[in-house]
């Protein structure tokens, strides 16, 4: 036997936590961890019966195991720091060699001598496609989630929910292939039509049509749709039945019940789902590498063939890249990393604040 667990004084206090342990939302807080406590609390030896127990050894299995888990936990921080450090280390030489302004130059010629490349158009395309995709996907996804949880008959709801979960697991390359081979036709027709009747809106400009930002962001929207749906469906399912029934008992219509009971309760979860979708959309590589026309210009014309994103550009230009070219691509990846990091940290901060709020309210 290694060493003793906590003192009996400690173990007794577990009683109150026994029931509450199940009720927190999963991953809500570290409170369960606190009940198990630190094995090395100072109250040890003086208290009742303690003298009869063996003393804690300085280098027992307990310490070793604890150190092992601590190392694994620290590894996460090390990996994140290492990502930043190594990307910067490889990006800096290429950025030094760049003869144009990295932020504003519209073009990508890092293999030339002198190398010229700029991130502006790529970052713009990344944000534009991701936002357009979310604009399409989020309302539809929330609609489906509400349909599956509150409108559809229960059997159909669970069955289709399972199918949506499966679709969320389909690799993005499949969506990219489908978009490139099959969605191009309808999108070209749609683009022609939009341009004919709505060309007075500046985003519906002239062609050539086909592999445009519109196509890319629609493929992206279809790809993130199952992800956002399956997450928000879980959130809607967790609404306490009592809240829903109370709303209905007060005479609310079904929509009013959804608006007053289900949506407010699920708001942090919905934000989390949308942010996860945004993260996926920002970082999506292959689906966009297959569907975008890859040009290097900042243009709001979503119909014209062209558009590019940081990730798609990396996939498209990696094969031909020399040393500086690789450095340039790594520099662009660093920018993408920074963008997603900012989005994620903001989202997590919102969720953590919100979660405390709903937890105390519930």
């Amino acid at each position, binding site marked *: 036997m290694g060493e003793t667990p906590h003192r009996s004084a400690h173990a007794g206090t577990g009683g109150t936590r026994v029931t509450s342990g199940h009720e927190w939302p999963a991953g809500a807080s*570290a409170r369960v961890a606190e009940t198990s406590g630190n094995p090395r609390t100072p109250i040890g030896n003086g208290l009742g019966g303690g003298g009869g127990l063996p003393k804690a050894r300085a280098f027992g299995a307990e310490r070793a195991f604890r150190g092992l888990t601590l190392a*694994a936990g620290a590894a996460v921080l090390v990996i994140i720091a290492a990502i930043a450090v190594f990307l910067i280390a490889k990006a800096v030489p290429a950025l030094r060699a760049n003869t144009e302004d990295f932020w504003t130059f519209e073009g990508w010629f890092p293999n030339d001598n002198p190398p010229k490349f700029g991130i502006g158009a790529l970052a713009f395309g990344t944000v534009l496609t991701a936002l357009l995709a979310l604009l399409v996907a989020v309302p539809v996804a929330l609609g489906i989630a509400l349909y599956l949880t509150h409108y559809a008959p229960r059997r159909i709801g669970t069955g289709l929910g399972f199918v949506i979960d499966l679709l969320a*697991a389909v690799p993005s390359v499949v969506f990219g292939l489908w978009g490139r081979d099959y969605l191009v036709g309808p999108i070209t027709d749609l683009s022609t039509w939009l341009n004919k009747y709505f060309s007075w809106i500046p985003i519906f400009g002239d062609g050539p049509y086909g592999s445009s930002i519109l196509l890319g962001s629609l493929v992206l929207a279809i790809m993130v749709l199952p992800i956002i749906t399956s997450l928000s469906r879980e959130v809607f399912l967790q609404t306490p039945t009592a809240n829903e029934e109370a709303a209905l008992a007060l005479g609310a219509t079904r929509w009013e019940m959804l608006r007053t009971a289900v949506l407010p309760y699920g708001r942090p979860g919905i934000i989390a789902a949308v942010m996860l979708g945004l993260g996926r959309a920002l970082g999506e590589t292959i689906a966009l590498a297959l569907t975008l026309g890859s040009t290097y210009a900042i243009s709001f014309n979503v119909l014209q063939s062209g558009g590019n994103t940081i990730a798609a550009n990396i996939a498209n230009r990696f094969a031909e890249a020399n040393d500086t070219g690789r450095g340039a691509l790594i520099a662009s990846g660093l920018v993408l990393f920074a963008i997603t990091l900012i989005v994620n940290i903001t989202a997590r901060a919102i969720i953590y604040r919100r979660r405390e709020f709903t937890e105390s309210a519930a």
Partner: protein
Amino acid sequence: MTTTVTTHRPRPPAQPATLRAKRLPRYAAPAIAVAALLVAAGVVYGLGIGGPVLVVVLGALCYLAGLFTAANAVEGRRAARNRTWSALIHSAFVLAVLPLASVVWTLVSKGVERLDGNFFGTSMNNIGARDANGGAYHAIIGTLEQVGIATLITVPLGVLCAIYIVEYGRGRFAFAIRFFVDVMTGIPSIVTGLFVLAFWVLIVSPWFNDGRPGFSGFAAALALSVLMLPTVVRSTEEMLRLVPAPLREGAYALGVPKWKTILRVVLPTALPGIVTGIMLAIARAAGETAPVLLVAGGGAAINFNPFENNQSSLALFVYQQAGEASKYSPARAWTAALTLVALVLVLTIAAKLLARRNRLGR
């Protein structure tokens, strides 16, 4: 007593009609739908501005407007809103099912074209643009080896990290780890690919590769494990939190040290849930293209050794075949995509079934 009963009984039928809310007759909704479609068809074909798709879209909008007006006039504002939102939610469902069904149908119908023994038994070595045969044997080997190594790296690390967060970690450091695990879920796959490119392929691998940077399947496994780690940690963490406190306390009361309690009591109880999380992480990693593209290089020949020379993977195979000019490559791409989706779905379904049998369920 009897008198009260007799006076009460006739009341419900005698209730004056004005006390009941007026409702639209049952035929109202279909009638409005038909009228809306007719109006839309009249407008579209009368003005010659589009085809049947536009008729349906315009008809749906007319239906929503007509339904709201009619319900507003007869049933009142609240009921009208309820009906309109209900219609919107149903149409969101239909809107999303169409493209997703199209993806699935295309995948299956195109994928079975090359689904033969030759596809699974040969590689792309010495296959020219005019050869109709050639297969994905090398890619399947690559996927299995890379995902296998990534799992071997990730599972111990992720489970230990989750144990630290739940059982030992306290205060700011544990919170920081939790927070950055959450942030890590949002790191784009291409960035992890670039990280391994900068760290392993360009800096570490030249040490034992005669000074030249070498692509390898192991590098891809490293990138995939960075992607899998947050998923494994999060799901393990949630499962560990669900383990009832009395189990731990019972073990402590018997004098079992903490590390042994975790390994012998807590982990086995949470095991099915942990395995589910791991399988979902594997399914996601198997479908990733971008990191493999950057660090494994992708080759046409069979390579069983993950530590040396280029390796391909199924997802990368799809992407490469999609980019090739040969008229036979689309069929290969679709069949590989079907194989990949089948692999991912089998893993996902198995994980979900396992989760359903989980005793700890939420």
